[in-house]
């Protein structure tokens, strides 16, 4: 049995089910292999789809000849971009602030006139076996005119650089992440700069004049992948009534339905998306890649079609997060008060506009109270896979720049980095660099908890060892969410939730439902409903599910409670106001003999008025921000450049931790991904933009053998707007590790590395350069 260290509970309410650690409802299915993932669908007459991908990073598609492939026995269909709708470039919001330029989305799924990165999907085949499909791909003749590729933002912004999209407009609006195109009659030249925007607060120039100490700092990070275990897989079937059924694992099957419907040019009511279990997403499965391809193949073939990606296709054909270049300038007074901050962030969007530079700009300075700030963002298209969301999109790289700059500032000021953060921490009422005033946040509390943690005071002796700290902020999201409950006669409950469950949310949502009704969470059986079985629910993203879908379940439970009270009043022939409901027991207020448990009343539901069911749809505001502070000890081997993580502690404000084990798991998972980002992970491209490490053998992610136990401390500063005080927790923990590890390495080797990953090669190079500089 695991022993859990006590977390720090600052919220002041006690609950029966909320805050406990029940066994997850989906655990048995997953550990016994019964859970069904995207690839597990098998249907009668089902064909196998495969995708032909571009061998070039940038090429004009002059023609595609599919005749020989179509003639191969066993081949039932071949599709190209012409088989998908080519919607306008109008930006649409498919809920939760995730914007889509549907034209770009369509052209990313199947290239139209140009291949924009190696691995860009060109055509797809459906055949009776994967082997025949693979043979058929080789028979498709594509006439490419190879074009010079631009492989970095710096190259892309040079005058005269090859343009990816000849009519791409440079937006100056952080709102329009996916970019736009010039009107036909607009004489302006196209650009690789998709967007340039800024945020300003106070007077930055004056702020720097007030500063006694100023540091300037520049960082760079490579594109890295989300690295989910389960590759993308989708199956599509057109039914005899003209409707389309989709099976896939995603972070939002309503999003899958809506995006596929638009690209198939059919109403959403004609499409049913069935969610499968998901083997990781981390943001990248908020987009569709295969579902429209499977649907187009199935429509043409008249058979259901399943398409799956290989690991190489996942790396080369789906979104990594952006490579970045960031300049930061900070100013502070001698007594350690931040008075000015300036940052310029350039993010590679990949082949289509829409890097996460906007959230990066909005979050990087948010842990702090800075009166004068200027943040500027640049979104640049390059001939690499289109970037996709990755856990706190854009923010870890920005925090790498900001939090290492803070460390430099602290070194210059000679102050303790946690004391500095405490001094400058954002609190309730602090104005964010983007303007709004923060509600109740728990940043100072996490810094204090980190400062008080035994880890921070523990001696760290020996050469090449160092300790680093860093903090991170994520605003957390919400959105529309739905849930439905059915009360069984045996007193158990079927709870249908609209959110795909990535991190144990079936249980954390059920706990909130059970808490309202005073029943054990083990009596609730949750499942994720398909798009025809539960109300619209926005994506599992933004760390929002326990907040928003938990809220929907809370409202469903309130409605069930109200109906139960009505039934009891009917049985006892009294007014509903005379029925008390407490902890799963209904009681007549004036007659203690009249008493029914939830289970007893559930058994009597049909003769007292029929089945008791309830549904709720909500779109709640008030998703409270979450902040965290991490401490890490490292040891660097000067002979090999290998970095060993000796000890790691992550402290985070989770609001009320509905299921503390899941919160701890999210914190640990985020920290590990951040450590991988810091030390190992990167897309290696050759000079033609071809990825050289598109397998998990060569794309090195940390495993449990590489790392110590990640210690966690949950600080519970309840979110005052949520019924149980929930804040999202999933994204914040990936933000601090990059800078925390960099700060620790800097303290271990006495040299600062400003580029990620800090791989053994880069560390050795840094050490050798330093030795040369010192005449060694």
């Amino acid at each position, binding site marked *: 049995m695991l022993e859990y260290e006590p977390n720090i509970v600052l919220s002041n309410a006690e609950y029966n089910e909320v805050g406990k650690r029940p066994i997850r409802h989906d655990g048995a299915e997953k550990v016994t292999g019964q859970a069904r993932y995207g690839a597990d669908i098998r249907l009668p007459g089902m064909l196998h789809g495969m995708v032909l991908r571009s061998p070039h990073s940038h090429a004009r598609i002059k023609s595609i000849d599919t005749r020989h492939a179509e003639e191969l026995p066993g081949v039932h269909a071949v599709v190209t971009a012409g088989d998908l709708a080519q919607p306008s470039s109008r930006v649409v919001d498919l809920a939760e602030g995730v914007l889509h330029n549907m034209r770009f989305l369509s052209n990313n799924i199947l290239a139209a006139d140009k291949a924009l990165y190696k691995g860009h999907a060109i055509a797809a085949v459906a055949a009776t076996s994967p082997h025949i499909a693979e043979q058929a791909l080789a028979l498709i003749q594509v006439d490419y005119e190879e074009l010079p590729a631009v492989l970095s933002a710096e190259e892309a912004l040079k005058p005269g650089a090859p343009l990816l999209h000849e009519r791409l407009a440079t937006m*100056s609006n952080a709102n329009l992440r996916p970019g736009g195109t010039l009107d036909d009659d607009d004489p302006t030249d196209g650009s690789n700069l998709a967007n340039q925007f*800024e945020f300003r607060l106070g007077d930055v120039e004056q702020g720097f004049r007030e500063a006694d100490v100023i540091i300037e700092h520049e960082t760079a990070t490579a594109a890295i992948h989300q690295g989910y275990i389960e590759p993308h897989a989708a199956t599509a079937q057109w039914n005899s009534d003209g409707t389309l059924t989709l099976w896939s694992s995603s972070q939002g099957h309503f999003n899958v339905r809506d995006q596929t419907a638009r690209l198939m040019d059919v109403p959403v009511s004609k499409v049913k998306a069935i969610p499968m279990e998901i083997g990781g997403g981390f943001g990248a499965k908020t987009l569709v890649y295969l579902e429209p391809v499977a649907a187009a193949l199935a429509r043409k073939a008249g058979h259901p079609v399943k398409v799956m990606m290989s690991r190489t296709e996942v790396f080369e054909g789906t979104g990594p997060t952006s490579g970045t270049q960031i300049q930061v300038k900070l100013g502070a007074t001698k007594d350690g008060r931040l008075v000015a901050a300036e940052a310029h962030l350039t993010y590679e969007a990949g082949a289509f506009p829409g890097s996460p530079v*906007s959230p990066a700009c909005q979050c990087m300075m948010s842990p702090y109270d800075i009166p004068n700030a200027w943040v500027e963002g640049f979104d640049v298209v390059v001939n690499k896979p289109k970037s996709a*969301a990755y856990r706190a999109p854009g923010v870890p790289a920005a925090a790498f720049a900001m939090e290492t700059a803070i460390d430099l500032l602290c070194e210059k000021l000679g102050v303790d980095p946690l004391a500095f953060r405490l001094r400058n921490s954002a609190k309730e009422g602090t104005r964010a660099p*983007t*303007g709004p005033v923060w509600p109740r946040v728990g940043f100072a509390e996490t810094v204090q908890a980190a400062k008080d943690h035994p880890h921070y005071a523990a001696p760290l002796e020996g050469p090449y060892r160092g300790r680093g700290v860093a903090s991170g902020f994520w605003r957390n999201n919400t959105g529309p969410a739905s849930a439905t409950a059915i009360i069984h006669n045996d007193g158990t409950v079927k709870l249908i939730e609209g959110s795909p469950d990535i991190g144990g949310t079936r249980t954390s949502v059920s706990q909130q439902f059970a808490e309202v009704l005073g029943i054990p969470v083990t009596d609730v059986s949750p499942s994720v409903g398909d798009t025809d079985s539960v109300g619209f629910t926005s994506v599992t993203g933004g760390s929002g599910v326990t907040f928003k879908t938990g809220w929907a379940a809370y409202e469903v439970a309130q409605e069930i409670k109200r109906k139960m009270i009505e039934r009891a009043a009917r049985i006892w022939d009294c007014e509903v106001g005379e029925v008390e409901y407490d902890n799963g027991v209904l009681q007549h207020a004036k007659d203690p003999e009249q008493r029914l448990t939830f289970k007893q009343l559930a058994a009597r539901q049909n003769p007292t008025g029929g089945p008791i069911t309830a549904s709720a749809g909500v779109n709640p505001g008030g998703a409270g921000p979450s902040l965290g502070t991490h401490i890490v000890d490292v040891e660097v081997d000067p002979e090999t450049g290998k970095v060993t993580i000796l000890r790691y502690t992550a402290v985070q404000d989770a609001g009320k931790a509905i299921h503390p084990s899941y919160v701890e798991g999210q914190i640990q998972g985020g920290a590990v991904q951040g450590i991988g980002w810091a030390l190992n992970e990167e897309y290696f491209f050759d000079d033609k933009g071809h990825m050289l490490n598109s397998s998990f053998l060569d794309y090195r992610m940390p495993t449990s053998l590489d790392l110590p136990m990640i210690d966690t401390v949950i600080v519970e500063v309840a979110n005052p707007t949520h019924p149980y005080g929930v804040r999202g927790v999933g*994204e914040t923990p990936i933000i601090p590790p990059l800078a925390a590890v960099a700060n620790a390495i800097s303290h271990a080797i006495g040299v600062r590395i400003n580029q990620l990953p800090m791989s053994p090669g880069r560390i050795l190079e840094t050490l050798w350069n330093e030795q040369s500089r010192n005449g060694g």
Partner: protein
Amino acid sequence: MPEVWLPPRMQRLTGGAQRVTASGRNVRQLVESLERAYPGLKAELYDDEEDILMPGIAVIVDGETSQLGLLERVDENSEVHFLPALGGGV
């Protein structure tokens, strides 16, 4: 009157002012009021095809991101920000 904070891009329409006042009891009325005082702002904030706040714009009223957009109520002392909405990744 409610105080409205505008992002730098829109400040060209307010003569460089970051903060302006506008009248109204909800965000829709604020947008109309802003348009009267600073022509062109409505086109930045309002999607007339869908009759919604421009996709991707979040309105933050008194520190809370609104889920009601144009329908969000404001009071005399409200502080209103129009900012890019944030998508998420987990």
